């Protein structure tokens, strides 16, 4: 037994030792790759110049921010253009502000951006054939689950007779609940009642 373990360990050690050499040669390369993989993702917040230009009208600014929250910053990692500090987000946010100031409606602004950047900018996906599962799926599961629960309970009640150990009032209630069943069935249920 113990020798087995030792042999296994030796193999693993040899394997591990092999890795060191690989790492030695690839070390810098790996870091470079890893860093280049991280770098663009953190580029979400670079220092940039053309910054937020909040509107003076607080109501308009509030609308701009509310709208900005519903629009995705395309270069960021899942941030809205109102939250992101990325330069493009600021540009688009300022574009939203400018359009609001010019009297454009929210829908017009959304359409404007979708026409240029695609549906990807919408945090609220449109309801269509493709997104049917997304929108309906959870409710369908809830409905299915409730139906399953309902039929499961019914089956159980039919099999074992729920009212048998209850007091009279509850029994009546249970019977009312099971209304529609034939009396003979009810008797069988009582007979089958288990602990």
């Amino acid at each position, binding site marked *: 037994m113990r020798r087995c373990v030792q042999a296994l*360990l030796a193999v693993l050690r040899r394997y591990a030792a092999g890795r060191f050499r690989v*790492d030695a040669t690839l070390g810098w390369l790996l*870091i470079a790759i890893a860093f280049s993989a991280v770098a663009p993702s953190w580029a979400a917040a*670079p220092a940039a110049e053309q910054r937020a230009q909040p509107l003076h009208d607080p109501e308009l600014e509030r609308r701009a921010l509310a709208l900005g929250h519903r629009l995705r910053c395309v270069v960021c990692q899942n941030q809205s253009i109102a939250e992101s500090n990325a330069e493009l987000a600021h540009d688009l946010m300022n574009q939203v502000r400018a359009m609001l100031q010019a009297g454009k409606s929210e829908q017009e602004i959304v359409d404007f951006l979708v026409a240029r950047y695609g549906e990807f900018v919408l945090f609220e996906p449109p309801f269509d054939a493709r997104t049917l599962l997304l*929108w309906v799926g959870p409710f369908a599961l809830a409905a299915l689950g409730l139906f399953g629960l309902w039929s499961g309970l019914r089956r159980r*009640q039919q099999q074992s007779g729920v009212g048998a150990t209850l007091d009279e009032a509850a029994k009546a209630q249970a019977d009312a609940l099971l209304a529609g069943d034939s009396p003979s069935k009810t008797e069988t249920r009582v007979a089958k009642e288990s602990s």
Partner: protein
Amino acid sequence: MLAEWGQVLLAQAIAVAALQVFFGLAGAQRGRVAWMVTARRAALAQGAVLATAFAVLIALFLRSDFSVALVAQNSSTLTPWFYQVTAAWGNHEGSMLMWAVALAGWSAAVAWRSQALTEAMRARVVGVLGLVSFGFLLFLTLTSNPFSRLVPAPEQGRDLNPLLQDPGMIIHPPLLYMGYVGTAVTFAFAIAALLSGRMDAAWSRWARPWALTAWLFLTLGIMVGSWWAYYELGWGGWWFWDPVENASFIPWLVMTAFIHSIIVTEKRGAFRAWTVLLAIAAFSLSLLGTFLVRSGVITSVHAFASDPSRGLFILGLLAVTVGVSLALFAWRAPMLAGGGAFGWFSREATLLVNNVLMSAAALAVLLGTVYPLLMDALGLGKLSVGEPYFVAVFVPLMTPAVFFMAISPFLRWKQDDWRRLSKRLVLDFVVTASAALALLAAADHVTLRAWLGLWLTLWVTWGSARLLWERLQNRAEGQSISERLSRIPGSWWGMWLAHLGVGVFIMGATLLGAFEARLDVKMAPGQVAELASYRFRFQGVEEKPGPNYTAMRGTIVVTTADGKPVAVLHPEKRNYHFSAMPMTEAAIDTTWRRDIYVSLGDPVNENEWVVMLFYKPMVLFLWLGPLLMAVGGAVAALDRRYRRQRAHLAVPAGAVGVRV
């Protein structure tokens, strides 16, 4: 040399895990006591070995040994020592090692502390945990070795990501991993039940404290993560429905369903297959979350260095673990059918209704998270799923769940009479609903969402108060209040606290959503802005050096509208020496009623800065609610009855083999 020791320890852990699997599963199958005992010892040994490996990693960070790639990438000599320690898990490799350590810790705890289980059940659980650990350790050593060397070693390291140089980051990952990994324990219990075909009331009683513990860690982990995002990211949000957040929230929802369905299983022996499925799902979704986060298939604000080989490995691990478990489920679950019956209007039924709703909500979050990926994979275009979707789907599903949550504890087991409760429920509904409306009307903010939230708050808190009152009433006459209180079992208090916590949380989220205010404003020194009856005077910005960064430190004096001092806030914009990205450090003044949250934007010109001012009411309740839930989980997990059960079920050492 130390790093090589780390390697050796990892290799040892793999070997020990293999032993744990073999002796655990084969021993239980063949009924060999000695094997089963060996499996338990292996679990303890694995815990010790991995804890040592983790200590080695921390030591490497504290020594600033930049010949280790991970240390060079995530630490520096200028990094304060406590962040050198936390840097050990502030990266992919280290956090995966922590995952493995947490798993080994859980396994060791099961091996050590679960005397109530039969030896065979214990061995199976330990064996399954060993299998998970084995797969994970392979992943660690093959794709994410934390001890890899870097030649030549650089003079200085790259420092820890500034976002992670923060107290929240010290505790958030360990808590969350304890939760994630805790789901592995319930998973192991479920698999053991499928393997043995034994899943009775005793099984439920064994599994329940473990499940509750895992759940409470998940709760705390998510809460701390949310808190961290709130104060660290500088936009004042606390939940972004980001894939990484969702990855922790989905298992939480499923675990919540599990800790409720297991009650029905315990009481009635019913819906056992469903309970097992939830346990498998909770763990699978934890793994899936890891896959989503680490593989880079989904974009998230939490950018871990992603690497395709890792993603592929986790996907493989996921496919094998979950595929085999679900195949086992398909094969064995039909055996678990049966159990007692109960009526529609019973506590069991409401528990299960909530189970369905929780599962549907979990599906909603899951779909929202992976749908962009699925669409892309099917070539149907790119789209985004964000907050508007989640709110639109999540709220309608959770509203009835919270509604039933407050009713369920009043119902009798098995079968209750609707007439017994109807009058009171209707009255409560009318009172709470109109009170919510009246409160909102008084605050001049009547919206459907605010009303719904406030109504649910009142419904839950009122229900909790009444529940406690009735519980005390029902006790025998002549007992003092303290006697009555002390007779209430821990699991009841746990339920009561956790449900109250839900109400408290909803209150926080609702009032914050309804009454928060934000103002982005350009300010020159001396200028004053007003928000939510507070005055903010901008005093300017000065440079201030930190240990490994230089900060631009603003000063903003907050007063009430009539000039009474409230706080002096110092938001910062930090430039860390080793990374180009500027970091925003918000300044927050907290009272129980509200936060005043100030963060510094960018300079507009020599003189002016963009300043973001937030008024955030009731934020504290966002953290208090989950905290109550977690305390509830702890109280329930420590219920005396589980311990008494242990004494009762404890098997004489000599008789162990016979029971198999």
